[in-house]
């Protein structure tokens, strides 16, 4: 029983869950969205500071949630800096694929391979379908912030 669970709750996740990075509200943020996971009631706010060139200068989040959703938000915000909006979205698509598709092949990717390799610790949710939304909440919210929607939901 513990083996399966340790696959989901890897040390990296527990660490990010306990001590989330970028857990703040940047003053220069110019994009913001609030994400809501209706099955548990958790909400996250994602803040982005995007330059005129479309490059993300800063990314941060605030909110309470389970270990999976907080770890995912923490890791995501660390990776977004320096990416363009399009690159951020592309990474989300690949990450979503990794969390839901058993045939996902990391080696077949040219882009994002390093980031996805680090995000692989979250892909344990594939074996826990009810938890996929926890892993992707921050990403849906980030995507909504880029698009300019104020609110999003994993539904």
């Amino acid at each position, binding site marked *: *029983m*513990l083996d399966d*669970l340790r696959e*989901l709750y890897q040390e990296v996740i527990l660490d990010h869950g306990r001590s989330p990075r970028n857990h703040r509200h940047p003053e220069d943020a110019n994009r913001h969205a609030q994400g809501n996971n209706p099955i*548990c*009631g*958790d909400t996250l706010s994602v803040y982005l500071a995007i330059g005129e060139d479309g490059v993300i200068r800063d990314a941060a989040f605030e909110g309470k949630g389970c*270990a999976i959703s907080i770890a995912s938000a923490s890791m995501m915000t660390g990776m977004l800096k320096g990416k363009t909006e399009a690159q951020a979205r592309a990474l989300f698509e690949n990450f979503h694929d990794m969390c839901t598709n058993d045939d996902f092949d990391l080696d077949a990717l040219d882009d994002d391979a390093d980031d996805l390799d680090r995000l692989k610790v979250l892909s344990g949710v594939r074996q826990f379908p009810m938890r996929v939304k926890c892993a992707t909440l921050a990403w849906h919210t980030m995507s909504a912030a880029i698009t300019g929607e104020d609110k999003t939901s994993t539904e």
Partner: protein
Amino acid sequence: MSEAANIEAIPGDNSTLAYDVARVRADFPILTQEVFGHPLVYLDSAASAQKPRQVIEAMDDAYQTHYSNVHRGVHRMSQLCTDAFEAGRETVARYINAGSSDEIVFTRNATEALNLVADCFGRAFLKAGDEVIISTLEHHSNIVPWQLLRTRFGIDLKIAPIDDDGNFLLDEFEALLGPKTRLVAMTHVSNAIGTIVPIKEVIARAHARDIPVLVDGSQSAQHMTVDVQDMDADFYAFTGHKIYGPTGIGVLYGKSERLNALPPYQGGGEMIASVTFEKSEFKDAPHRFEAGTPAIVEAIGLGAAIDYVESLGRDNIAAHESGILAYATQRLGEVPGLTVIGRARDKASIVSFVMESAHAHDIGTIVDRAGVAVRTGHHCAQPLLQRLGLNATARASFGIYNTREDVDALVEALGAVTEIFG
């Protein structure tokens, strides 16, 4: 009575002659299932209860031997099926001591029963500025229908408060009753933290001002003796699937004069006395509120579920469950870092809790791997959780088939939470 008191005195002791939990468990086929290699420990009956074979067989038998549409054909099957369907209504009426089976309206679930009252009562009696009183303890299904009425008619919603332990505050409730109060819509038992509302007293205080009361009995009908006449409820809603019956069938009890003062809910067949293109005449309750083909076999299944519950004895069930509640509260209280949420003086067998080290959702995933099914999240009672300063809890809810071994299995599984999260 003294027997029930004895059982209560020994937390979790199920070994009385009056209540043989092993025999009850043997009636529930699903309890032999394994989950991730562990025997299923089902602690989510407040969300939906499991079904005894008596219910499954009654429904199977209806489909195989006497199924047809009801209240229509003159043929034999239609007669047999109508009799079985209406027998379900009679059983419900007897179970909650309604004055007549005409006071029992079948709905899809408790949510629809509450919406039916909101919609019909709202259209008939509510206008801008009128007040409806609910409580902090409500499930979303007794909040949102009234918010929809607020949008539609401009009514105001007043919220009766609780204290930090989750006790309902009767005097503070009474202070809300005023000249504009048109209806009190109140839960009997909190689904999230188990508080039992002193509903008879709520009704007495509302009736002293001629204000009718709708009771959400979703979490009471399965746990305690409910006597709608003694309680003097004007309306009482509950659902089949939480009382060991099928999904798709709920009940709205209403006093005859209350029901017949309401306009129809939906239009269609079954609810009319006559129809011309100019106008229709509506039947009296309950048929006025039952447009279209009802959940026929589900009503038969609900009747079988109630027969089953009554065969165990409702005092015996209450004593058994209060023993499990006491044992669970004690055992969970011993788990390091765990806090029981909701410590009302009077509780049904529902225990909500949080842990310092882990979010409720993580707790739910971890104990699931040990075969223990608990509910996690806001339990469709977000305003209540907000009042308690929480986003989510884990909730263990106990029914007629649960044992102290089930509680032990939960406590043991929680050890893995500590092991992983520290």
